């Protein structure tokens, strides 16, 4: 019996010899420090959600190496301390260091014996959870899909991010769309495509703005100063850029100012604004601005339309909404069901019916459609659509952690029972 532990110790000591440089990284005090900093990070980021919203806090603190926190004015002594910037280590920094610390501990400190195997599993699971979360934050895409009853949609819209789309509607049967994604708009400069009869020079772009219509005599200042074509010019709109609002109710009106060129000759300068709830709303706000959904441009006998809209992703399948149900408990305003009845029309003319409701999303081709919002009187439904290629990782991690915990607990239980029965025997 005494040989067994000896063997494992020797293998551990061998490992410690070979990876001696890792030993300082595996220190438990480092773990404790990192965990304590994680507590501060999570606490501060939770508080900051009130000010900048969940997405804002996520970008500032969790998806960064460090975040800057200002002591809240509402707190005690806030009027004196609120201007001091306090750096807080960010999620990527702490997560990365914790992974390093755990890996080092795996190599130089953990005993790979049956007795300690549970601990290995638990920590392996935790490494996977951390890595999985990092991967998710890097890869997960969230979009929305709004469908009116009786209609069918084959594209998703991003929650954040806009595109400048040029749509050729000359043929009644088909539309040709060329879109400049937000990344290109941010980059600015001159863009051209074989499918477009003109070149596009992006002069200005912003994720959010305020706008107002000026009286005809006065001249717009700011980004739209040089605009001489399209709705912005005819409605004499002035734009003031604003920072992007990350809060959950945030309404971001993205804008872009662009010049179209044929060869070297300028065709004029346009501007476009995107409405966060969809560009069809412009006509409701002001009939003059209705064309923001489609600013016509005639070119070589073809009719093009320009619009700035939420970035779209076209799908090889479409979803048709048959009906919605929104039920409440009788005599209360507590909903007990939100449900959309849909038909999923896939490639090869296959189709199937499905019900999407709370806790029961539709999964198809790596995307998951969740019931998100619904308007009963206007008869439309909104799905949140998520593509998360690493969705399986947390499940595997959970299984590992569970095995580990069970292993460790049964070990303790068996030992406890043995000890007790031994004690009983001794007492007898």
């Amino acid at each position, binding site marked *: 019996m005494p040989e067994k532990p000896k063997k494992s110790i020797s293998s551990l000591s061998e490992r410690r010899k070979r990876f001696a440089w890792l030993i300082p990284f595996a220190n438990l005090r480092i773990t*404790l420090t990192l965990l304590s900093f994680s507590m501060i990070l999570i606490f501060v980021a939770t508080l900051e959600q009130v000010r900048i919203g969940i997405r804002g806090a996520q970008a500032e603190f969790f998806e960064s190496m460090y975040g800057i926190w200002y002591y809240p004015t509402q707190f005690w002594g806030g009027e004196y301390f609120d201007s001091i910037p306090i750096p807080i280590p960010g999620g990527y920094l702490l997560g990365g260091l914790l992974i390093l610390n755990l890996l080092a501990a795996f190599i130089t400190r953990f005993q790979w014996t049956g007795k300690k195997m549970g601990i290995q599993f638990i920590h392996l699971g935790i490494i996977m959870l951390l890595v999985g979360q990092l991967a998710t934050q890097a890869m997960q895409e969230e979009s929305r899909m709004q469908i009116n009853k009786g209609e069918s949609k084959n594209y998703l819209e991003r929650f954040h991010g806009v595109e400048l789309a040029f749509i050729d509607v000359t043929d009644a049967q088909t539309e040709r769309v060329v879109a400049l994604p937000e990344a290109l708009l941010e980059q600015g400069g001159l863009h051209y495509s074989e499918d477009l009869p003109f070149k596009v020079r992006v002069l200005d772009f912003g994720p959010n703005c305020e706008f107002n219509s000026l009286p005809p005599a006065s001249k717009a200042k700011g980004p739209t100063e040089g605009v001489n074509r399209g709705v912005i010019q005819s409605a004499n709109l002035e734009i003031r850029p604003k920072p992007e609002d990350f809060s959950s109710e945030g309404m971001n009106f993205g804008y872009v100012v662009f010049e179209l060129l044929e060869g070297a000759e300028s065709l004029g300068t346009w501007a476009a604004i995107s409405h966060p709830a969809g560009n069809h709303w412009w006509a409701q706000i002001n009939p003059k601005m209705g064309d923001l959904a489609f600013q016509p441009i005639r070119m070589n006998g073809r009719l093009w339309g320009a619009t700035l809209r939420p970035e779209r992703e076209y799908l090889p399948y479409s979803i048709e909404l048959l009906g919605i149900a929104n039920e409440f*408990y009788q*005599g209360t305003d507590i909903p007990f069901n939100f449900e959309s009845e849909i038909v999923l029309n896939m490639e090869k003319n296959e189709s199937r019916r499905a019900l999407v409701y709370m806790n029961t999303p539709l999964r198809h081709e790596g995307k998951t459609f969740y019931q998100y919002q619904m308007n009963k009187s206007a008869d439309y439904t909104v799905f949140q659509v998520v593509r998360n290629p690493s969705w399986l990782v947390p499940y595997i991690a959970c299984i590992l952690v569970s095995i580990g915990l069970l292993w460790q607990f049964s070990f303790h239980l068996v030992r406890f029972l043995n000890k007790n029965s031994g004690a009983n025997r001794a007492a007898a």
Partner: protein
Amino acid sequence: MNKKKKSNRLRILSWLLVICGLYFVFFPNKYTSSSFFDFFKGEPVGTDESINLDAFSRIPVLRGGRVKPIDSVARNTLLVLRNKRTAIDSNGSDVPAVKWLADLLFAPERADSLKTFLIDHDQVLGLIGKKLAKDGKYFSYLDLEPFVEEIEKSAQEAGRLERENRNYFHQNIIELYHGLVLYRNLKTTLTPPPHAPSSAVHDHSRLSPLFYNSETDGARSDEYQRFRNLTSDLANNPEKVRMGNNEAMGPLMYFIDYYARYNLYAEFFPLPPEMGESGGKWRKIGESLVGTEPLDSKEKAKIEPARFISTVQALVASPDEELPNQIKSIRQNLKMDPTALFAAQYAEAIKLRKGVDPIIENYEQLESAYRAGDAQTFNETVQNIREEINQRAGAEISTIAFEKTYNGYEPFYRSSIGYLWIFLIACASWLISVYLKPGDGQSGAARTLLNCAYLLTGLVLIAHTFGLAGRMYIEGRPPVTNLYSSALFISWGAVVLCFLTEKFLRLGIASAMGSLIGFGGLVVAHNLSIDSSLNPSGDTMEMMRAVLDSNFWLATHVVTITIGYSTTFLAGFLGIAYVFSMLFRKLTRSKKKGKDLDRTLVSMIFGITCFSLFFSLVGTVLGGIWADQSWGRFWGWDAKENGALLIVIWNAIILHARWAGIAKVRGLSALAIFGNVVTAWSYFGTNMLGVGLHSYGFMDKAFVPLMAFIGSQVAIIGLAYLPAFFSLLFKKSSKPA
């Protein structure tokens, strides 16, 4: 001899205590009307001589989405209005909830003089010209009646403010106004508001012969019957539905409008679904006469009169079998068309709603019998109503009798008092063990009391467990469904663990700390139940929102995470026990048993923290899986999720600090006490932020208690280091000398 006598006396005392406990847990007392054995007995039989309010309180009605006995409606509304389950009459004695409600429904002038409203904010009292010191804090409707308009005005002004900007006066005045509305709605649930036809629109001479006339009519249902005659005439002769037929259409429009509006002034649904009706909707009286308005009343202005009348006529003229489908089709396909929607309501009122529900007539008989004190008629009518409902309501009313007894048993009230006693007994046992001289039978005496505390814990735990199980049976849900029930469950979990610990280690520490958490948790639960911003209906068994409507996840994620809270609190309270026993030993300079006690406490804290880590980790991970199933992300950095993660990390810190040898006895205790702060934050604090998916209600009232709790925990951690601090000072000053 002396020794024996003393311990005998104590033994008798502890048996007496246990017997008192038995009595207190199982039998009725002044504050709890049912005993444990009532659950197994049938309904008490009333006599013909007295009005049987017990039978009346068992009539099922629907309120807050759930079918419940009238007894629950009475208790819950009083809980909202007065934070108690009784009212007070002019002599200052308590009026049971069901008596109060019977007065309010059938003889409102009696109820109006009962003290029903709690007002304890000085500014609100000032508004009605009262002083706390002179007039007390309980007021009747009559006291408030002259100020109703002023209260309404102030409440509406307060209501226009953003939530964050409301001060205590604003909150209190809004609450008082809601209370008044609730009171008036209860009053008009069975009795419609008075007629007030506007003379500009209606021909009063045509209407008044139809109105209820207390001199010529036997009951108000005579008016309903006259309205039914009017509609059945139209149903049989659809050609009479036309413009210009003022004789029939004028009264029709007035009554449909009036009865539909009456729905808004009724607090609960007294009428069960009709016999053989699928879907099983309960109805208010107005609804049973004319249905409900399809849209907000303002939308009536958009009706096109000609098309409206022709649609109503066409619908009424269509055959009986087809009408329901036609109405359904309008409601589904013409949601933006007020003309068609209101026409559908009219067609339903004219043709589909038939007769006057016999239960309406029964309730009117109940009213006249109650006012006249005619016990025999009252009791018979109650019986008739219950039989009729039993036949019509089906399985929905299977838990009514249980719920009625459960209300009277008050398991959590019993348990909270019980826990307080246990805590005192455990403390007494320590005092005895310290102050009795060695060899004076002290170990025996202390042990007797400890056994007594242990037995009592078991007894009270029966009541507490039964309370949780009863809620599960009534709701058909796992134990934790809202903040209120989480407080019940947290305290229960801690007491169970302590009970088991005490079984093996009869030190009294687990008994004391378990009962302390039990008592604290139940007090928190009580305060949550009377917070009308969290619990506007007063019913702690409210319905679950769609996203939470999953018994599987409630039973797994919510229960494990709550056990995690429970064990973390327990570890923290054991830490507190260590700090105080350590200080006590330092103050009394007693050395005995210190090391042993410390070692035991440390191993208890350590073991329970292992449990905490397990449950909070598993619970958090299960929550992640639920979120992945429902929203498509495993983790969303939501405030409550972050709170749960903080608990997991903190427990991991405690365990790793112990393994690394950084935290010894005091360090471990201090860390565990800080665990209380972390748990309190993620349990309550995150809800106060008002962001994210888990914010169930803005709980600004809980802010001060939460801060006080956190402050006290930090102070106790400070106390833990006080001796070390002093000895450091002492050493420094002694060195130069």
